[in-house]
């Protein structure tokens, strides 16, 4: 017998074994009036499994992989319906649907989706989550024709990026990328930097991203440190069966300065990139590989960047109830650093107070090389229809070198993590999630050394270990779902004593005739990063000195929200939120020394409103998202009160898209009010953010062309002091999908 014949036989045997252990989902689809619906489409989401109903409205889906699956039923003219079904090997489970017309009184209904989120460390429907969750789907990612994850998430309701630093409901402000109060997850694996606690948004190629979930409010009861103000979970694509490929080529140009007196080069800056993805899958094994890179001239002086990346993912399903996934990515950036823009006298200022497109002559040559990558392995198993568990290990590594006149800083950091989690459904309507998590971060550096001498040649190593256990239980009582849980984290720095933080959370969802009401109250915390504890450098004329005694910052965070359909064509989601923060870590200036200290007691409160409308024009959709934010530092013995820096009081996003056959056009308008307060250079001019992005696309078979005109009005502004925000940028992306 040849080896290929042997392989074919083994494959056939494996397939037969899989079928024998798989499950069946069956049921009916009826219309609201009670009659059966023929030819309705019923699918298991995230798989290729689907069928149509017969004349009696019956359907049967098999083989369904055991575990928790989402089943969707839909038919033209009706609102799709979803159900979460837990199936065990060899089981048969019924899931029946009643579909409602999508047009009432002549007006189309707004359909909000997708509906599956993982905010609670398990799959659940969006309207069952006790906190606000914004989802950026793959459709939106493609439609926006963006290049990186942060560009895609930037327009999500209540989210604002400040020079790459994410804010959810004003959580972080801007601290030069240090100590993010938002936790980044890649497929549920924590991915904040081990040394600085910041986020590398280019860690995962956008090509590999299926969707992004933004969980708002404190999430430390499940996710621990850094989930102080929210969690961003980047979920990578599933790999389909068969051969698939995708090639994406992009090119673009940056607008020149709108005034001749600001011109800084005699050519138009460009940007070009290429990504290639290939994948192959069977029912047993699947794998994908992505590689690519891009170059940018930048939109200001000393702003060129090269980016290279590769990512891979492999899935092995040795049994119908077991799935093993290994994935990883690597990215390398070499970029010039524009630091701050040129002020009078610091460059050829042409008689102006400042030159926003130019840098100070003395900063010429500043350059950074940044490499980062992660590896993760995940084992998922559904042991029975009542119990599923998973175990994972991960390794995140970052390395940066800042090359500047007079001094070079570098840091090499690792973050090793492991987690064991179980999700149990002991009785109908009850879900219990428990788990334990370990993490160890280390850094070898000449800047986060903790050294207090004035020399900068010292190299140091520091470590931080975190041990955590958590549990959360959800119980269904009629139309109400109540959730309660807590997590305890132990943190040890450089092998020292453990300090403990307990983060409880209570929440609930009540389904009424006026929509789904949700409420939650929980605690968030963030352990200081190794950089904040041990930074030791000079930022002329200041000496930045370490503070190994920093304590974790903590917060109580609550929200009350409602998601409802206001009319046939208008869906609304609104939430009032309130956060009381304690011991916020902020840089504190004392004479010629800067030190991170637990100084600020703060209050962040406000209102989030998101409206999705489908006006009575076929193909047109529109949405509005508005956040009002009251962000105040409260007065204490050591610090005066006042507005928190870098938080806009008003944040508004208007979006509209129109689709006609294969062509679609659309746009976003973002308004962020002028910051009441900024750190550094507080007397500089500053304005509100008013940015209009336009887009258009054409899809024809396997080809699509997407055009994006970001900052179409070439509005010149800055969010961060003396750092020009992106100018008008035209980009064209051509994608071929096989």
């Amino acid at each position, binding site marked *: 017998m040849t080896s290929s014949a042997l392989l074919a036989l083994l494959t056939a045997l494996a397939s037969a074994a899989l079928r024998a252990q798989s499950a069946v989902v069956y049921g009916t689809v009826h219309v609201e009036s009670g009659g059966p619906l023929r030819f309705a489409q019923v699918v298991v989401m995230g798989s290729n499994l689907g069928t149509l109903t017969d004349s009696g409205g019956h359907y049967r889906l098999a083989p369904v992989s055991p575990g928790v699956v989402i089943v969707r039923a839909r038919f033209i003219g009706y609102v799709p319906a979803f159900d979460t079904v837990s199936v065990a090997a060899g089981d048969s489970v019924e899931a029946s649907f009643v579909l409602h017309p999508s047009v009432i009184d002549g007006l189309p209904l707004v359909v909000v989706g997708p509906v599956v989120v993982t905010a609670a460390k398990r799959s659940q429907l969006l309207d069952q989550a006790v906190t606000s969750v914004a989802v950026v789907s793959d459709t939106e990612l493609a439609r926006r024709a963006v290049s990186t994850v942060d560009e895609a998430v930037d327009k999500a309701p209540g989210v604002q990026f400040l020079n790459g630093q994410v804010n959810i409901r004003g959580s972080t402000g801007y601290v030069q990328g240090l100590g993010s109060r938002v936790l980044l997850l890649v497929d549920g694996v924590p991915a904040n930097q081990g040394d600085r606690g910041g986020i590398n948004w280019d860690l995962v190629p956008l090509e590999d991203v299926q969707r992004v979930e933004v969980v708002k409010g404190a999430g430390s009861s499940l996710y621990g440190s850094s989930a102080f103000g929210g969690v961003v979970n980047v979920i990578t694509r599933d790999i389909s069966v068969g051969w698939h490929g995708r090639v994406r080529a992009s090119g673009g140009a940056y607008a020149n300065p709108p*005034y001749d*007196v*600001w011109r800084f080069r005699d050519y138009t800056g460009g940007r070009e990139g290429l990504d290639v993805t290939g994948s192959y899958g069977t029912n047993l094994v699947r794998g994908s590989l992505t590689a690519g890179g891009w170059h940018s001239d930048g939109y200001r002086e000393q702003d060129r960047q090269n980016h290279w990346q590769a990512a891979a993912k492999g899935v092995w399903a040795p049994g119908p109830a077991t799935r093993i996934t290994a994935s990883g990515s690597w990215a390398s950036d070499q970029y010039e650093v524009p630091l701050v823009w040129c*002020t*009078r*006298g*610091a460059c050829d*200022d042409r*008689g*102006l*107070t*400042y030159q*926003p497109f130019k840098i*100070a*002559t*003395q900063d010429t040559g500043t350059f950074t090389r940044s490499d980062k990558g992660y590896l993760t392995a995940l084992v998922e198993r559904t042991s029975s229809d009542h119990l599923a568990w998973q175990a994972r290990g991960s390794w995140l590594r970052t390395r940066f070198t800042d090359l500047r*006149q*007079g*001094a070079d800083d570098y840091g090499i950091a690792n973050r090793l993590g492991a987690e064991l989690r179980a999700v149990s459904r002991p009785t109908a309507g009850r879900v219990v999630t428990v788990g334990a998590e370990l993490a160890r971060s280390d850094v070898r550096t000449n800047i986060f050394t903790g050294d207090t001498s*004035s020399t*900068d040649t010292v190299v140091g190593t520091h470590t931080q270990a975190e041990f955590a256990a958590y549990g959360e239980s959800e119980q269904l009582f009629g139309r109400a779902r109540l959730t309660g849980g807590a997590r305890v984290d132990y943190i040890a720095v450089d092998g020292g004593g453990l300090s403990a933080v307990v983060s409880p959370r209570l929440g609930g969802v009540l389904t009424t005739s006026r929509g789904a009401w949700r409420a939650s109250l929980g605690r968030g915390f963030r352990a200081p990063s190794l950089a904040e504890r041990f930074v030791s*450098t*000079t930022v*002329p*004329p*200041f*000496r930045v000195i370490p503070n190994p005694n920093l304590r974790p910052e903590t917060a109580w965070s609550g929200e009350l929200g409602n998601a409802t359909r206001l009319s046939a064509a208008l869906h609304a989601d609104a939430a009032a939120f309130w956060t009381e923060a304690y011991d916020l870590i902020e840089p504190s*200036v004392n*004479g*010629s020394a800067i030190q991170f200290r637990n100084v600020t007691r703060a209050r962040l409160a406000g209102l989030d409103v998101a409206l999705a409308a489908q*006006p*009575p024009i076929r193909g047109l959709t*529109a949405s*509005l998202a508005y956040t009002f934010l009251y962000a105040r530092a409260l007065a204490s013995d050591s610090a005066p009160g006042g507005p928190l820096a870098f938080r806009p009081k008003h944040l508004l996003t*208007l979006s509209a898209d129109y689709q006609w056959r294969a062509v679609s056009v659309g746009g976003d*308008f973002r*308004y962020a009010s002028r910051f009441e307060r900024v750190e*550094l*250079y507080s*007397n500089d*001019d500053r*304005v*509100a953010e*008013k940015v*209009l992005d336009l887009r258009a696309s054409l899809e024809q078979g396997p080809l699509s062309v997407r055009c994006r005109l970001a900052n179409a*009005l070439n*509005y*010149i*502004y*800055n969010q961060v002091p003396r750092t020009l925000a992106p100018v008008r940028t035209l980009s064209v992306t051509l994608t071929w999908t096989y």
Partner: protein
Amino acid sequence: MTTRARGAAAMALAAALACNQGLEPALAPTSCPHGFVGVCGTVSFVGQVPESTAKVFVVAFDTFPRSQNDLFKFKPQLDPTILPLGGPPFFYTLQLPPGHYEWVLAVWQKQGPTLNATNADTLLRETGFYRDRGDTTRHGSGIVIVNAGTSTDSIDFVVDFTNMHRVCDYFRPCP
């Protein structure tokens, strides 16, 4: 209001918000700006700027430094005014909190490693300071008063690249 009218109103609102200009070129001042708190004046340049120059900036001390340790107690700490490297007379503004200042000076900084207390004597030079007319003492008596809510104009002085002084000139002996 019909749905179409509401849509049109929303578009008009968005357009109105978007049409407002952002940052625009701001001409450098030629006199103390209205509402500015600090000192202003004109700096004249003498001599050729050294090739090893990193930058030249203006700062103020509220009391004349008594030791090398006092050298970093200048204001403003964060954002000293950068001067051009020579050329025609330059009108400068230096933002300062209200108070009494004994020394307003220009500091020349040499290219080199990151500045700190131990290399200040190597990297920094005093290259000109404000003094009362007619005062010929070594440090000069150039007391400047900044009142709350106002600026003090005509704090003029000369930056002389041919006559710069090391830190240790003021705190002898020089190594």
